[in-house]
């Protein structure tokens, strides 16, 4: 069983757009047949409906040794911001993934102009605002 561990230099994992997201990936016990190991900056949606996912940047290590470590650095993107509503959240993460097994580990982070997750106010019927009788 392989083990992947992501450590971010910024322990609070909150970034302004344009800031560097740096850290270290440690791994051990990778299968010998592993073709590559990728560290990547991704965002994905989490919520009630269909999921969306995009890889923004990636660093690939071809034919990785069974145990090892590497440093990585990405740039926090301007869009999309880390946001949350009742139906959907946009979540940023640094993910490490081994191919072809697709074993993965990810570390979630926040990217926004306030370094905090932005909340989408509810606008559905009967939610979020008062109505007069």
């Amino acid at each position, binding site marked *: 069983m392989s083990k992947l561990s992501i450590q971010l230099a910024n322990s609070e994992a909150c970034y302004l757009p344009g800031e560097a997201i740096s850290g270290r990936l440690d791994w051990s016990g990778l299968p010998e047949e592993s073709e590559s190991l990728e560290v990547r900056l991704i965002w*994905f949606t*989490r*919520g*009630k*409906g*269909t*999921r969306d996912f995009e890889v923004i940047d990636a660093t690939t290590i071809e034919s990785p040794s069974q145990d090892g470590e590497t440093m990585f650095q990405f740039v926090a993107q301007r869009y999309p911001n880390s946001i*949350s*509503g*009742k*139906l*959907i*959240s946009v*979540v940023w993460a640094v993910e490490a993934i081994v191919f072809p097994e697709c074993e993965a580990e990810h570390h979630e982070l926040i990217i926004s102009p306030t370094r905090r*997750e932005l*909340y*989408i*106010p*509810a606008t559905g019927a009967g*939610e*979020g605002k008062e109505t007069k009788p």
Partner: protein
Amino acid sequence: MTGISGGVPARHNPFATEWTDAIPFRFPSGSWDFHLGRLRQMRYCAAIVGRKGSGKTTLLDTLVRQLPPQSPSRYVCIQRCPSNHRRTINEVLNQKNDGTILMVDGMQRLSFANCRRLLQSRKVPIGGLIVTAHRRCALPTWIHCQPDQASLQYVLTHLGFSADSEITRHAEAAFVRFRGNVREVLRWLYDQVATGQLAIHGTQA
């Protein structure tokens, strides 16, 4: 965890599809080896039958991961993408037999012509044809999905809720109300937690 007035943001909702889709199918009885053996005896030509939300898609998804990679060599799974159905079906049926197993999630979503082509394909030497359907069809039934309260508890346990939690109590009532449709129960729970009607604090195992 709560950041939206009276509710839980999607990021922390335990009933988000990211978590519910990751729960593997579990047979009420019999092991995977037993049921895979039966499927092999049926020459991989079979139907998974059940009502809406009974776990057919979950079973098909789990099956793709359970089938041995060496034989058959390739799986084509048609799911919720009607525009690609015809092309994919044609590609599979027109190629020489390379052991491909064609899996179709939602036989009822196909046009009559495509349905007929598929059922005729049993005479075409492809590796197999596995479909999900709401009712019995021309293919022999491999599994009839009929979730019960134990199936629901299995799902909730996977999501971290114990049998005596408040969420479980509400889920059991909803299961009856939604006539055994587990997917609807999970969507309902999502909404209840999102809007703060049900609290998840202190209820997760």
